[in-house]
């Protein structure tokens, strides 16, 4: 019993320490981004661009396919569910609102957490194990400025853009299926979608994606910096990073949605 309580206590302390570390990482990254140039140690735009390419542009194909599929799936389920009530035409509104407010940001967040979050943890963890992080420090390069800050800024720029692309492709997926079922053209479907959507719907998804971006970066970078135990440790941290990122994204999404629908 004593051991169990001690174990729970240790876990709680570790959790608090991790949250504190992640928060400091966020503050320090933003501090370097905004104040770095005054210390002659600015966050390089080239690094941000490089990260944005790796996180965003290269994720466009897979993100597009998945959002298109989710849109089509929603159309399928929606038409089937609304059929008994004769309200199939309402599927346009349902898909437009649910994709822009919810699904696009969530799907993109999960894809990027799995694809880029794991890569970030593995890269930083490997660098730590091979003393590259120490090498940065002795050269006089702050690892947070050099590694974390560009990833954070790139992620905060790219995830909203991917979400907007996901919005469009999700609706397009719904349009392609619905156009066959309801005898309407894809263009008509899309026009009706844009009519029913308000800027607030898109803003909800985009603002969620910024929160998801911060979660992915903080979890993946902090897990990378804390790697110990060689290649096995890198693997363990990478798995942990992906699982935690996706879990936090889903919980954050639930909390976000709760407050936005009040």
């Amino acid at each position, binding site marked *: 019993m004593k051991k169990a309580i001690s174990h729970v206590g240790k876990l709680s302390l570790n959790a608090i320490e991790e949250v504190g570390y992640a928060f400091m990482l966020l503050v320090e990254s933003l501090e370097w981004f905004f104040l770095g140039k005054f*210390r002659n*140690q600015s966050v390089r735009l080239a690094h941000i661009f490089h990260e944005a390419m790796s996180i965003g542009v290269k994720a466009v194909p897979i993100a597009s396919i998945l959002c298109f599929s989710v849109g089509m799936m929603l159309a399928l389920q929606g038409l089937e569910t609304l059929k008994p009530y004769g309200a199939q035409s309402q599927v346009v509104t349902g898909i437009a609102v649910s994709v822009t407010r919810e699904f696009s940001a969530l799907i993109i967040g999960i894809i990027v957490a799995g694809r880029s979050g794991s890569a970030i943890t593995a890269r930083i963890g*490997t*660098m730590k194990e*091979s*003393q*590259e992080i*120490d*090498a940065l*420090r*002795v*050269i*006089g*390069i*702050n690892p947070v400025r050099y590694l974390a800050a560009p990833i954070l800024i790139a992620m905060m720029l790219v995830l909203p853009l991917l979400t907007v692309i996901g919005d469009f492709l999700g609706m397009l997926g719904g349009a392609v299926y619905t156009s066959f079922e309801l005898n309407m053209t894809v263009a008509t479907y899309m026009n009706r979608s844009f009519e029913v959507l308000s800027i607030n719907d898109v803003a909800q998804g985009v603002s969620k994606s910024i929160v998801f971006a911060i979660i992915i970066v903080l979890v993946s970078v902090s897990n990378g910096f804390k790697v110990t135990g060689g290649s096995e440790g890198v693997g363990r941290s990478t798995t942990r990073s992906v699982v935690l990122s996706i879990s936090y994204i889903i919980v954050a999404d639930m909390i976000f949605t709760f407050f936005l629908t009040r």
Partner: protein
Amino acid sequence: MNTAAQVENNLPHQVAPDVVIDVKNLVTHYDDKLILDDINFTVNKGEIMVIMGGSGSGKSTLLRFLLGLNTPTSGTVSLLGKDITQMSAQEMYEMRKQMGVAFQGGALFGSMTVAENTQLPLREHTRLDENTMRIMSRMKLEVVNLAGFEDLMPAQLSGGMIKRAALARAIIMDPKLLFFDEPSAGLDPVVAAELDELILRLRDAMNMSIVVVTHELDSAFKIADRITVLDRGKILMCGTVDEVRNSGNERIHNLLNRKPRQDAVDVDEYMGRLTGRNIKGSLPD
């Protein structure tokens, strides 16, 4: 100069004007475990100081404190007359421009070519144009006999080439202090001897003060002006090569003659380790 006699007799520490590294009463812990115990030594300008000791003696840990990567429990580490344990981040940033470090495994950045690795300190600390940086990195790669390899990635290099590339990166800013962790480890004797020659050439040509951490006796005796011998986190001796060779200290003698350490066995402790209980029968914490 801080002599072996001063260390052994714990005499007051007098800093000569040409002292570039001055470690005083350095004590470090890992959790509750004492790792380094009252470390005192100095390194003079233009001197090669070898920190020698067996595995687990604390020499690599000591290097981390000399580099300012860790903060000690107590004591001071002064580089070029300034105590780095009390420095602000900005002061440390300025200090690092005068330090070069070659890590044991090279610690080259895997996503960069050899040239990009060597140019990184210049890119971060200077406003030189690309051509000048390219020429400077080629000059340093020439010094370490890596001319023509600038476009290769670290994964394409042999062990010796990685160490030489790391050395080129360490000296690109012409630092006053150079730290080299285990230069000979994992290399064949010929390549290791080449690296030793290179370290001596660097000291002579650039008047650098060099700290080398190693457990290779041949290499240590060849390059050292003075040797600090560490054992179980304590300095056994700090002296010239001849003083170390002729030391009457049994543990130094064992280290030089590659005799394995044979500690007396504490029966109670041994039984405790086997059974997971201490001798009074209660479980250890």
